[in-house]
Each structure stands twice: as C-alpha cells, then as structure tokens.
C-alpha cells in the first residue's frame, strides 16, 4: 500500500515536472533555443492566478480566472518574444541560454516586488477533496494534475504532428533559411510558440499552486524539469512527460529508501547518468552531422 501511495504522489509531482519540461521542449522544438526561464514562467503563471483568485487581491471566481490567467501569460510570452527574443534571431543557442537565465532573474525580482516574498497558497477548488481507494489517498489536485498533463501532452503532440502550424514550427527550427524559402513566416511562428509556452507554463503553475504553497523560488523546480526534458531527449513531447514521471517517481522512493542527504541527489545523478550514457536522451533525435 505504501508503495502505491509513493507511486501516486510521485506520479502527480512528476506530471508537474513534465508540464514544465513540455514548455522547454516546445520552445526547443520550434526555435532551437532552451528557455532557462521556463520554471520562472511557471512561477509567474501561478502568481498571476493567485493575484486573480485570492481574496486579498482581486478575488475572482476560480473558473473565471483560469482563462484570464492563461490569456495574460500567453500575451506575456508573445510580448517577451516581440521585445527581447526577436533580437536574438539567428544568434547562437548559448546567447539565448544566458539571456533566458537573466530573464529568470528579472521575473523572480518582479514577482517578489508585486506579490512579496512570503509563501502564499492559491484558493483553489482543486485543493479540497480527495479520493480513497482502500488505504491509498489520491487528492483531487493530484488527480487533476495527472489528467490535465496527459491531455496537454496528447494535444500538443498531435498539434506538432498534424497541424500546418505545428509542422511550420518544426521546419523553422531545423533550418531557418530554408523555412523562409518555403514561405513560413519564421518570426511570427516563433512568437506563437513563445505564447504557447507561456500558456503551458501557466497551466503548470496553476496545478503546482493547487498542490501546495507557492513562493518566488518555486521556479527552481525548472532544474528538475531539465532533468525530465533531457531524459526524454529534449525534442520529444511524450519523452518530456515520461522523463518528468521518471524524475517524479524516483524522488519519493529515494526519500523513503535512501539515507537522508542522499535522496535529493537522485534526480540529478540520474540526469548525469543519462547524459553520459545516452547523451541525447532516451528518445534521441540527433545524428552525427555530415559535412
């Protein structure tokens, strides 16, 4: 029974990692950049939601606030691309990495200014109920996280495989100049993907905040989501979810069965092992470049 309980809580945590990892993968798939600020995006999305819902701020109804928060974060993602990232067009990946790390710092600073440094909790209807199966308890929030994550992954995966825009995004990342020649508005496509990443981050943020308290350092779970994305192969959406679940499930088991002090090492040790033995993740998408 304990095993099932650990598995379930790991699964729910892993889905949040998976959602943040989806954001990384989306941006990586479409722009070949890695957004080190995705975790901070998630934190910001959660705080926007807190600002809309909690009584000490605006006090809107939860279900009214969800679409508003999604729109705000989508618009923010698009504006960020328009004002900052578009200037980095065609520059090296490394420059974008450093830029997004700096963006993360700025986002954390701004969120701290607006919402303060005290931990807050979101007044979410998801945080109330729970289900019991024998001894195993599954909270409503955990269930919502798992269901929403699965739906999001399925939707985004099909979006990239089937729709014209999704294919255009993949083409734009693989060879920008060739994509231009094929009539793809590369810059606008990139704006769209940043908006989408903002929306995904907001979903992750709302679910994260429903599961527990929230403070401005919540964005650091982005580092665990990195482990998830890398394990999944960084270019693969289902891979990101699988990676997230692996990281999420390992954590509670490591905490239960390993001596104290060693348990928090587990996800990073796994990340390094995967990088050493399968440098491009479990779902590799890179072959050796031929000149």
């Amino acid at each position, binding site marked *: 029974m304990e095993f099932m309980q650990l598995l379930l809580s790991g699964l729910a945590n892993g889905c949040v990692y998976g959602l943040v990892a989806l954001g990384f993968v989306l941006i990586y798939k479409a722009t070949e950049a890695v957004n080190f600020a995705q975790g901070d995006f998630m934190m910001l999305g959660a705080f926007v939601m807190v600002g809309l819902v909690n009584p000490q701020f605006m006090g809107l109804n939860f279900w009214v606030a969800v679409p508003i928060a999604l729109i705000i974060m989508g618009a923010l993602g698009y504006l960020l691309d328009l004002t900052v990232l578009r200037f980095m067009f*065609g520059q090296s990946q490394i420059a974008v990495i450093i830029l997004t790390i700096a963006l993360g710092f700025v986002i954390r600073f701004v969120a701290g200014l607006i919402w303060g440094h005290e931990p807050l909790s979101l007044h979410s209807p998801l945080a109330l109920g729970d289900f019991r199966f024998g001894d195993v308890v599954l909270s409503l929030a955990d269930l919502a996280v798992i269901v929403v994550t699965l739906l999001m992954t399925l939707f985004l995966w099909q979006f990239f495989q089937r729709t014209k825009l999704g294919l255009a995004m993949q083409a734009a990342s693989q060879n920008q100049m060739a994509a231009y020649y094929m009539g793809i508005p590369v810059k606008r496509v990139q704006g769209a993907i940043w908006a989408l990443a903002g929306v995904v981050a907001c979903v992750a943020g709302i679910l994260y905040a429903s599961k527990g308290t929230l403070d401005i350092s919540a964005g650091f779970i982005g580092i665990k989501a990195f482990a998830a994305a890398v394990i999944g192969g960084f270019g693969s959406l289902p891979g990101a979810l699988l990676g997230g679940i692996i990281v999420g499930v390992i954590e509670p088991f490591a905490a239960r069965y390993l001596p104290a002090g060693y348990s928090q090492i587990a996800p990073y040790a796994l990340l390094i092992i995967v990088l050493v033995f399968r440098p491009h993740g479990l779902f590799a998408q890179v*072959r050796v470049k031929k000149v």
Partner: protein
Amino acid sequence: MRFHFKTTYDQDIRLFPDWWNFSLYAALILLLLAMPWLIDSFFLGEMTNVLIWAVAGLGLMLLTGQTGQVSLGHSAFMALGCYTTVNLMEAGLPFLAAFLLAGAITGIIGAIIAIPALKLHGVYLSIATLALAILADDFIVILDHWTGGVNGYFAPEIWIFGVEVNRWVNPAAWYYLALGTALFVTLIYRNLVRSPLGRAFAAVRDSEISAQAMGVDIARTKTLAFGLSCAFAGLGGALMGLFAGAFNNETFNFLISIQLLMMIIIGGLGFIHGAFLGAIVIAFLPQLLSMSTDFMGSSSIPGLETGVFGMILIAFILFEPMGLYGRWLKIRTWLELFPFARRDMFKRQKTYLKTERLR
C-alpha cells in the same frame, strides 16, 4: 594611430605588440602595487574581492570565451579548490604549497570529469554542469568529515614566509596575495593563448568540424581546456572561501557559477580584460545599489541585486554582445579612425540557425 611593420613571424605572438603597449601595462601594474597606499582598507578589501572574482572569471573565460564550452558548474570546482586547500593545510602543508597543489588537484579532477562531458554539446553540456553544481552542494553536506557540512569551516590562519595574511590585521597582505594570484593566472592565460594549444582552443570554439579537419584533436583539446579552467576556478574558489573567513555548502551555491558566467559576458567574452572588467561590475554593483537605495531613502529591497544584474545582462546581450571590453575596442577604433569611422562597421551579420536534429 600606430602602424606595426612586421618583419618576423615572432612579432605576431609577442606578449606586447610595442613599447607603448608594454609601458601602459607596466604603469597599470605599478598603480596596482601602490594601491594600499592610495585607498583605505575598505576599498582595498573590495579590490581584493575584484581580483578574486577575476581569477575565477579567467578560469571560466578560458573554457567559455576561448574554447566555446559553456559551463554552469564552476561553483563546484571553486568549492573543490577551497576545501582541498583547507584540508591540505590541516594536513600540515604550508599555505602556498597547499594552495597551488589544490589548484592542480582541482584541474586534474576537472579534466577527469570532462572526459564523459566531452560527448555533450552546447545546451547539454551546460545542463550537465548545472546538475554538477547542484550535486556539489549535496556532496559537501554528505562529506562533512572533510567539509564540515552545513556548519562549514572557519578559514585557518594563513602564513606566507613568516608573514601573517589576515584580512582584518593587514588587508594589504591579502590584497597582494590576490594580486599575485591574478597576475600569475593572467600570465599563464596570456601565454596559453599565444601557444598552439590556445590556437586549438579558438579553433574548437569557432567550428569543431573545421578544427578537426585542420588536425586538432578535439577530445584532447577540450579535456585540457576543462582541466586548466577548473584549476583556475579552484584557485579563485580557494581565495574566495578563505577571504570570506567562514564558508559552508551555501558559499559555493550554483548561483555563484551563474553569476560567474554573467560576469564574463558583461566584461566581454574571449578577452582577458573582460574577466577583470566583469569582476569590477560584479564586486561594485551591490555597493552601488545599496548606496542608491540609501540615497532614495527607501529600505533595502530583497532580490534587487540579482534583478538589476539580470537587467544589465539582458541589455548587454541585446545591445553589446561583446561586453564592456568589446565596447571599448569599438570606441578606440572610432577614435583612431576619426573622422573616417563608418557607422555600420561593427554591424552584426545576419545569421540563420540550422540544427542537427532530424525530427
């Protein structure tokens, strides 16, 4: 404007291109040597801090600026250098021997760690090194027999040839220790860049495939770059920990390595001067901010430092990717060519990104 009429190939790789250049640097070194008589002990401490950051920055510069491998994990090597120095000193070695040996050990361990990391490119390398930096924090807690764990260490007394180096008793001695280390590392760096190895570093940075075609052994070059870079970072970390007086696992947080990377970018990636300019920015920014918040009459704002730092960095990446030193080079060229400098001389070329991904 000075013209260099070159008659031998050696002129291309001289330490100083001409007498004017040599005398400028000689004057700078004299000024730095005279510093303890010119400024008070508070600013001398700040200068020491600048030099310590510059030593660590030169380490990362060698790897990132010279060889093009971005590491977000240098805080781990700084911690390694610091704890190795302290442990060697406790084993009875004199400070100077322990310090240099710790640098060498850090370099060797860095090179060993680099061997599996060599397979990783770009983003993957930076993520792996970031994981390393986070793991270092946990390992310091686990290995508390050597590291003191969460309680940390108080820096032992440092004696060099019978002179006590103590931050509070004689700050000038600390300053000279940091200055000596910085000069030592700079000299190694400068000579490295002039040597075939340094050229190989630059070749790997610019294009691995063409470097390979020119006969550069990529694996060996990257391993050496990693090892040397870690050795410098280890020296910088040892100085940083000892200068702080007390240190634990938090002192070498992974944010330090991110700060180090930002520092060399603000200074100017690929230039020795860049490491020093970046170190000046990183050491004096907190002072400047606290002074300006005092001036505005408001209480201190938490997180202001990193926030402002992030904004400065964004501005640099967008508007001056070559950093402060790159800006200075542009200004100097403009002055030298005056009135004939053209506006678009330094315009960035339009580039398009291509990937090696297939799906």
